[in-house]
């Protein structure tokens, strides 16, 4: 069984787990609306005095393609863990408190009641590894680069939401947004705009993909793709008291069991995982090991195309959800993941019982299908499936689950990532069902994009509900997190009525560390604050 699990882990790693990386905040329990199998340990604020020195080695599950913020995702499960040590971050987002804190910024605040004007002040005396000043001009150059018409940045729409930027002094950027947004700082925290490259390197057309020039807590010494990345402490870093370790080494090991074993045998000081069972095993084998993590809302989700039959009918959507035992899917296919039972994350401010998903009920599902078939005939639909082993395993599970019902049949269309993504995000509705990742560390970002109408490419289900649109727009203009959470509650409750998609697992992104590694904290969707790591002797 363990060997099967090991092979499944290989498949899991091959899956685009990093696409979903949405999680923000500081180290927290592995939470979720259902009890997970992982023992969770809260990493509290360090009370011991950090000690400088040592090399910390952390195992990651996959390699990244590039280190240019413009082409990166900024996701914790993907390239975020490289961007932060190299580029630092303007702000860091805490999903528990639902606020951003400045890091390389001194402050980032709205200056008008309508949240259209913002002022970003930078900390002084920061510089890039090429000696260029990390100043307001650098921010402007990077954000303009991201907003350019030919920019490939996933952050482009956010950068283009900035109407104008002025620089009243070398460390201040005054922004005017095209429309008010109370959590624009959270938006920045979530993506590549948070990571600033040297403007001189940009002008000189330095190959930032392979030779990044940042102002982060570490500087890259060596990068052997699919092997390891070695970084040394940046002596010019001033944004935080760290970094404490002399060197940070990232090692790539796609096999989950090997990462766990590597920590037990002393090869790694920590490793990335989103698998609760790995956390349990690691903590069993390594006394007092800690897990710095964040739970990601809507991390793994099935998406219905609500503008195309049969999923334009709520009865079919509901029936399908009721027919799929998602606890079995989470436990057996997804290696003891935590099944999702609600749209909202239990324990969060925007949670309510009314955001519950329909329970598993095959008989109830059959009734709904019979009703639909009587009116419109048998149901056949195509599920768009990615080539990753895990996605195919998920899809086959769905197909098998639905085979128990009469009058409904699922066909699988396995395709290459690029083609599938284009199909799903084209907004033309050329698919009926797929698996997707909806990272919603900050609902203002992920939830807005996924559920607000009129957003082809970002709202893959083509969902359109005036109540939801109104609540999302109102939330954007509320500065108080509690008041915003009330609006998101409305959204989640409406989603539970309309079921345009359904989340099936709670994802936790995080890092397990050995007991002698202190300061383990993650921000955003699971990006480790490597500047705060230190060894307790």
């Amino acid at each position, binding site marked *: 069984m363990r*060997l099967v699990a*090991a*092979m499944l882990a*290989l498949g899991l790693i091959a899956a685009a787990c990093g696409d979903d990386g949405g999680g923000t905040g500081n180290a927290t329990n592995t939470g979720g609306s259902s009890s997970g199998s992982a023992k969770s340990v809260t990493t509290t604020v360090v009370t011991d005095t950090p000690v400088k020195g040592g090399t910390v080695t952390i*195992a990651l599950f996959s390699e990244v*393609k*590039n280190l240019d913020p413009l082409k990166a995702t900024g996701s914790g499960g993907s390239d975020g863990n490289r961007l932060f040590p190299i580029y630092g971050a303007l702000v860091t987002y805490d999903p528990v408190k639902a606020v951003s804190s400045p890091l390389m910024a001194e402050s980032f605040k709205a200056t008008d009641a309508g949240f259209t004007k913002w002022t970003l002040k930078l900390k002084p005396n920061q510089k890039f590894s090429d000696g260029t000043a990390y100043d307001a001009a650098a921010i402007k150059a990077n954000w303009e680069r991201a907003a350019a018409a*030919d920019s*490939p940045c*996933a952050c*482009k729409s956010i950068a283009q939401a900035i109407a104008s930027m002025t620089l009243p002094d070398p460390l201040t950027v005054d922004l005017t947004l095209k429309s008010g947004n109370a959590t624009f700082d959270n938006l920045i925290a979530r993506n590549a705009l948070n990571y600033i490259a040297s403007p001189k390197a940009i002008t000189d057309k330095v*190959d930032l*993909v*392979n030779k990044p020039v940042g102002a982060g807590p570490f500087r890259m010494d060596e990068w*052997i*793709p*699919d*092997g*390891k990345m070695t970084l040394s402490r940046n002596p010019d870093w001033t944004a935080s008291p760290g970094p404490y370790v002399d060197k940070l080494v990232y*090692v*790539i*090991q*796609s*096999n989950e*069991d*090997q*990462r766990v*074993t*590597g920590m*037990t*045998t*002393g*090869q790694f000081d920590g490793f990335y995982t989103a698998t609760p069972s790995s956390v349990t095993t690691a903590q069993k084998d390594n006394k007092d090991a800690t897990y710095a993590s964040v739970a990601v809302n809507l991390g793994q989700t099935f998406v219905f195309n609500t503008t195309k039959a049969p999923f334009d009918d709520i009865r079919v959507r509901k029936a399908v959800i009721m027919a799929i035992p998602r606890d079995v899917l989470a436990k057996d296919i997804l290696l003891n993941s935590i099944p999702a039972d609600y749209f909202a994350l239990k324990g969060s401010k925007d949670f309510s019982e009314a955001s519950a998903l329909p329970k598993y009920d095959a008989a109830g599902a059959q009734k709904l299908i019979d009703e639909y078939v009587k009116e419109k005939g048998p149901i056949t639909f195509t599920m768009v499936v990615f*080539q990753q082993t895990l996605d195919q395993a998920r899809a086959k599970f769905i197909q098998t689950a639905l085979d128990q019902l009469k009058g409904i049949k699922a066909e699988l269309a396995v*395709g*290459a*990532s*690029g*083609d599938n*993504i*284009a199909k*799903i*995000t084209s907004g033309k509705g050329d698919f009926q069902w797929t698996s997707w990742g909806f990272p919603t560390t900050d609902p203002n970002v992920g939830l807005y994009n996924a559920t607000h109408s009129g957003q082809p*490419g970002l709202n893959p289900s083509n969902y359109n509900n005036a109540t939801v649109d109104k609540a999302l727009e109102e939330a954007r203009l509320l500065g108080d997190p509690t008041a915003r959470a009330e609006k998101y509650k409305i959204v989640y409750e409406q989603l539970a009525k309309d079921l345009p998609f359904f989340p099936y697992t709670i994802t936790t992104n995080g890092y397990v560390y050995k007991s002698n590694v202190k300061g383990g904290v993650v921000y955003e969707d699971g990006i480790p604050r490597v500047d705060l790591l230190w060894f307790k002797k």
Partner: protein
Amino acid sequence: MRLFGLRLLQLIPVLLIVTLATFLLTEFLPGDPVYDILGPEARPEQIALVRQQLDLDAPLPSRYVSWVSDALQGDLGKSLITGRSVSATLRQRMPVNLEIAVLTQLLALLVAIPLGAWSAYRAGRRFDRAVTTTSFGVVAVPPFLSALILVAIVAYKLRLLPNTGWTPIGQGLGENLRYIALPVVTLALTEIAVYSQLLRSDMAATLQEDYVLAARARGLSNRHVLMREALRPSSFSLITLAGVNLGRLIGGTVIIERIFGLPGLGTAITQAIPAKDYTVLQGGVLLLAVAYLLINLLVDVSYTFLDPRIKRHG
């Protein structure tokens, strides 16, 4: 020398066929690499620009000719996805696979030759039966399973060796060998089993030859008879297989690379396929093809040293 030159010339049409086949295969890969480069929200004009920059819209024959002429000058282009030089990428990764392949073969032959020779000498007896049974057992276990078992015992239980990772030779031979040990042993296990049985079979027949009996009659030691008289003429199959395996070990160990976290060629090539990174795929396949063909050439040439009759008669 003439034989070597002739064989070398024969490589050229083979290489052309292999490279053309690779080019044609990448054409049949579904999808468009531009989406992987630009992302799913790329606009049509962006896509068109990138396709033009990468010459993806040029006719296949002209792209092929252009690529071959660049390859002859050592330029295999740049990765469509990362922009890294393909030549540099392959140069960085090839040593990993070369080292694994060479060390695996060395270990395998060092163990298999005496094992096979002694089994042949003791054909039908307890030692031979034990080796044969064990060999069949080892061959039945796939390498990924052997890898996991070795990791569990050697790395996890005994803490003797690291279970994953890689250190280049330049950063310390000792460290390099520590990391490479488990992957090499994993791969060598199957090779030892196969080589020892192959040699055992050939040598058992050779040991029945008259000249071997004559050597024994002259009072020569078992060691001399086995290693000096019988081994050489029994080695043809072994060398042929070792040569073929060397090529396979260089490019076909992607699962071992993934299990042990090795930054090898197999990983680069298999990742290039779903990413539609044509240039890396084509460069990688070309490199493997060249390696394979050169190894087979060396195997052919080595026959002349093993059997002078081949040298005389070509």
